[in-house]
């Protein structure tokens, strides 16, 4: 039982970090975008392993289906297509590495210091999608609605921002 969960976790988490690493180290935007997809997929798998199936599905739909596509569009729209591929470089590498590594060290240290045995709670029904649905429309109704509004506003806002016909840019 332990092994059954642990092995996929290690595999998916390893893959997720691997893909994330590709994003970090690649110069090609498209590689980055596709690696991101990979990462998202792996993270979705992790969600599943953490008994958050609904979240995993949402992850797949929103991220892999929506955001990544959006990003790839962004890549396409902001770069001239050439045969060399869409190349970007990086800077601040040293600083970035130091910050990232030291932050990781700090977090790692902090995590190790937490005694997670103390927070063991009771386990519940394996399938909690139903419960999510109920709670979403009862207890979390207001945030749900607001999220919808936020999404709408974001949609309108983004189309306004990226719209061509703004006076200032024309002039």
């Amino acid at each position, binding site marked *: 039982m332990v092994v059954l969960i642990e092995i996929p976790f290690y595999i998916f988490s390893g893959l997720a*970090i691997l893909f994330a690493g590709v994003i970090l180290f690649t110069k090609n935007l498209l590689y980055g975008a596709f690696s991101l997809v990979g990462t998202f997929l792996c993270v979705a798998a992790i969600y599943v392993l953490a008994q958050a199936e609904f979240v995993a599905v949402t*992850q797949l739909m929103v991220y892999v289906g929506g*955001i990544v596509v959006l990003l790839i569009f962004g890549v396409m729209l902001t770069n001239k297509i050439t045969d060399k591929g869409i190349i970007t470089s990086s800077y601040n590498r040293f600083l970035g*590495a130091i910050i990232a590594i030291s932050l990781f060290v700090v977090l790692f240290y902090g995590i190790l210091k*937490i005694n997670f045995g103390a927070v063991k709670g009771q386990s519940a029904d394996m399938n909690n999608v139903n419960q999510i649905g109920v709670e979403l429309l009862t207890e979390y109704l207001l945030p749900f609605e607001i*999220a919808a509004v936020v999404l709408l506003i974001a949609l309108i806002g983004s189309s306004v*921002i990226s719209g061509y016909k703004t006076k200032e840019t024309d002039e």
Partner: protein
Amino acid sequence: MSSEYYFILAAALFCIGLAVIITKKNAVMVLMGVELVLNAANINFVAVNKNNLVSLDGQFFALFVIVMAAAEAAVGLAIILKLFKYYKTTELDKINQLKG
């Protein structure tokens, strides 16, 4: 399976995302880094929720985060498009209007 492995994974992803945000020149890549960071956060929510599935608060947070991430991505991309139109580039090192 203990939660700390999730946290460590989340931490790793967060750090990689942060590194991407800091180092990449391309605005779209930076946006990708942001998504990584958000994912890392989501993993934490989910991992925290895993031990106490009675309330599912963590999963709700993760859900809302995903929604917000979508909105963020949309707005972010719109901004990037606007920037591209204005500066004819998405390389962030070229855009230093904030320079003091």
